[in-house]
């Protein structure tokens, strides 16, 4: 059996602040109650215990939210988060789907985590996270309330993600005024990261442009037991036993973890070579037992010739992004903001203004190159403060 927990409770208390420990331990405790050995899930108790918040069309901290039904047949809901503008500090109902303003407005389609079984778009933890994303990335965030396992197995979550993508892509009010296109990014944590990948793959096949994937501790796996799984099993809130349970609950019955949904670069995966897969930012927590699979995912993308950046947070545990009381949170949030700012907003806009639209493809590449430089600079360290200072000083950025 995995290393006993007694010793490790002290260890994991030392790497996260106490309130984070309490929060994640509470989830662990609740989740243990919900998973039944026979593979069923205590959904009623899960919904009872989950702390939820309603949408709020009144801006709080400059962000307001509202829920929409994207697909009636599956009751697919999404919660939309938008920044309140200076002109319309108090949107009324007709303003909810008012066209976005600003040259380019990124739209982040966000898939919440929960190992395919837990949480919802209106879970407090994810509502909070999405609100932060709006502010940091100056984006509209669409949080998808996808169908969950074990009641709805593969491919329901992916189908819902795809439906949401199509919906977002077809909203005229989400088109960036600059080019009348919806600038779509896919993001997600844990199972949400996994969904983002698969929805992106489907987007490529269908010709919908996804500009970037942001995967936070994405949930991947495989039949093999990797070194990190064995080493970290049970040590930082997560066990192999529970990981296995969730895959059994999500994957089609009888399938093992080398199913491509779980292991996209495994024996049954489809090659991504030669296709225009979105650039990916993958965040891996150093204390997450499935990191070997996440790192293999990054390698898989690289081998397929795809753009990918790994952000490895050595001392981070799962869920570090839920509370803003640790350095990993800030690093990732800054990353996200800088990545988006640079690739989306400032550089292409400025360079295009200078060099004309013929160079738009070139700008893209240049932007990404600059982003890479930023990213190298943006390791946790004093440099980051410089970045922040430079961030709002375009002349300095140009000097790069």
């Amino acid at each position: 059996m995995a290393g006993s927990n007694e010793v490790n409770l002290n260890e994991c208390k030392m790497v996260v602040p106490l309130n984070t420990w309490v929060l994640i331990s509470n989830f662990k405790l609740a989740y243990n109650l919900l998973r039944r050995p026979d593979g069923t899930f205590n959904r009623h108790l899960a919904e009872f215990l989950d702390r939820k918040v309603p949408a709020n069309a009144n801006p709080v901290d400059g962000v307001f939210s509202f829920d929409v039904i994207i697909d009636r047949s599956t009751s697919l809901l999404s919660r939309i988060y938008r920044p309140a503008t200076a002109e319309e500090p108090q949107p009324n109902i007709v303003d909810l789907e008012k066209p976005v303003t600003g040259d380019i407005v990124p739209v982040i389609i966000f898939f919440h985590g929960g190992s395919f079984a837990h949480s919802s778009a209106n879970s407090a933890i994810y509502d909070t996270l999405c609100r932060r994303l709006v502010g940091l990335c100056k984006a509209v965030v669409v949080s998808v309330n996808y169908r969950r396992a074990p009641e709805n197995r593969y491919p329901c979550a992916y189908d819902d993600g795809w439906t949401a993508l199509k919906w977002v892509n077809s909203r005229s009010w989400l088109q960036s005024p600059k080019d009348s296109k919806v600038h779509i990014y896919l993001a997600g944590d844990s199972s949400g990261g996994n969904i983002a990948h698969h929805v992106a793959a489907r987007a490529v096949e269908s010709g919908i442009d996804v500009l970037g994937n942001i995967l936070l501790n994405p949930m991947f796996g495989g039949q093999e037991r990797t070194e990190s799984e064995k080493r970290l099993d049970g040590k930082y809130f997560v066990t192999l036993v529970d990981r296995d349970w969730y895959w059994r609950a999500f994957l089609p019955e009888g399938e093992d973890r080398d199913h491509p949904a779980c292991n996209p670069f495994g024996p049954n995966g489809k090659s991504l070579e030669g296709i225009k897969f979105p650039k990916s930012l993958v965040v891996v927590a150093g204390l997450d037992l499935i990191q070997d699979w996440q790192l293999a995912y990054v390698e898989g993308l690289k081998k397929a010739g795809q753009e990918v950046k790994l952000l490895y947070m050595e001392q981070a545990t799962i869920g570090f992004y839920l509370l803003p009381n640790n350095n990993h949170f800030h690093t990732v949030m800054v990353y996200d903001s800088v990545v988006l700012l640079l690739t989306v907003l400032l550089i292409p806009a400025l360079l295009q203004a200078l060099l004309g639209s013929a160079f738009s493809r070139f700008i893209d590449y240049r932007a990404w190159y600059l982003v890479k430089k930023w990213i190298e600079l943006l390791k946790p360290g004093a440099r980051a403060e410089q970045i922040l200072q430079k961030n709002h000083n375009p002349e300095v950025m140009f000097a790069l």
Partner: protein
Amino acid sequence: MKRDHQEICGATSYGSGSGSKSESSTISIPNKGKLWEEEQDAGGMDELLAVLGYKVRASDMADVAQKLEQLEMVMGTAQEDGISHLSCDTIHYNPSDLSGWVQSMLSELNNPATENLDPVLANSDSNSSILSQETGVRLVHTLMACAEAVQQENLKLADALVKHIGLLAASQAGAMRKVATYFAEALARRIYRIYPQDSLDPSYTDMLQMHFYETCPYLKFAHFTANQAILEAFATANRVHVIDFGLKQGMQWPALMQALALRPGGPPAFRLTGIGPPQPDNTDALQQVGWKLAQLAETIGVEFEFRGFVANSLADLEPEMLEIRPPEVEAVAVNSVFELHRLLARTGGIEKVLSSIKAMKPKILTVVEQEANHNGPVFVDRFTEALHYYSSLFDSLEGTGVAPPSQDLVMSELYLGRQICNVVACEGMDRVERHETLTQWRTRMEASGFSPVHLGSNAYKQASMLLALFAGGDGYRVEENNGCLMLGWHTRPLIATSAWQLATTESG
């Protein structure tokens, strides 16, 4: 929460993250608002958790963490039937009040409202063995965790765990259930300081040992192998004197006497000195045993002499009291079955006794002891050793489970249960079940001036045949170990017989 998001990139002030020990820098989002600087509002609630829907006072955070730990220990991570009632039957209230919610689950586990402890097991036979196995593993881990807690003097946690052991044990069957129950009881005694009194009527403990003797081959093996060594040592003697350090009901001696009676050339004169504890009702239990053996001796034609000695401890004995005759007149054998380890409870005890034995100039000293180290200085180590040892022992008693448990079996279990209680709950002079391994005894004996007398293949073969007669020999194994014989259950040796002589003695 009054921050305006537009200020995030424009501001130039920097706060530092709270509490993180990461080696990374103190990079942080500018700290205009109250959110990151102060994590409490006027009510003392942790504001970060409040945003996520949980009301926990900052001052209660450590306490909630501790309760979560407790609950974690008790519940563990395995999918187990023991806690399924928490999810099925328990009514949960107000999950936002984390402290209250966790506390209510702790209370629920300690005082379960429902009697159906394992609804899943009850409903699903096919899952039962898997669940039972997982619960079994869980049980062992909980026992260990409880011992750890006791060692760390975290008695609150230990108390919670010991109650949970009871729950888990109830869902087990057979040996595991019994062992866990005895260990749980012993732990509880230790936690609540209700130490078992050793001043029980010795005739009661003798009776328990009788049942143990009947139920399983361990004592029979002990007597048999010791007798073999004594017989061989007495081969040429005309007068023999056996000093039995723990006479009890004298069950070892009829077989020896019969073997002596059948010796070619006729039996030697047989003297037996039996040592025993004082009886509370002042009856002379030793004399009664002596009398019975005298009657046997008469029927088989062996000249017999008996002396009984009452002593609280073997260390109280002086060799002069025993009226030892010179070796050329009478060959002496000293026999100790499960007695020597008790002397380790007081300083100087074993040394005194070993030197007394040497003064008796015995031809042979036979020692039978439990093959385990239950005398280590660290409580948790002792506990773990004992858990494994007695699990094997109880397992061997379990049998096929076809026949209903006999009274013998129940008494045997009680007999062992008392040992468990002593190993786990007692300390100091009260802890007398200080078993040590053969290796440890060897070191001690050799250091005290004894050299080994090897038990040979004939003894080995006969012991094996003896085993085959009892309990069909299934699972029991005789092992030879550097001249000593061990009896074990499957791969686990449980008792060891060794024989010794004075180091300066030459053979013949």
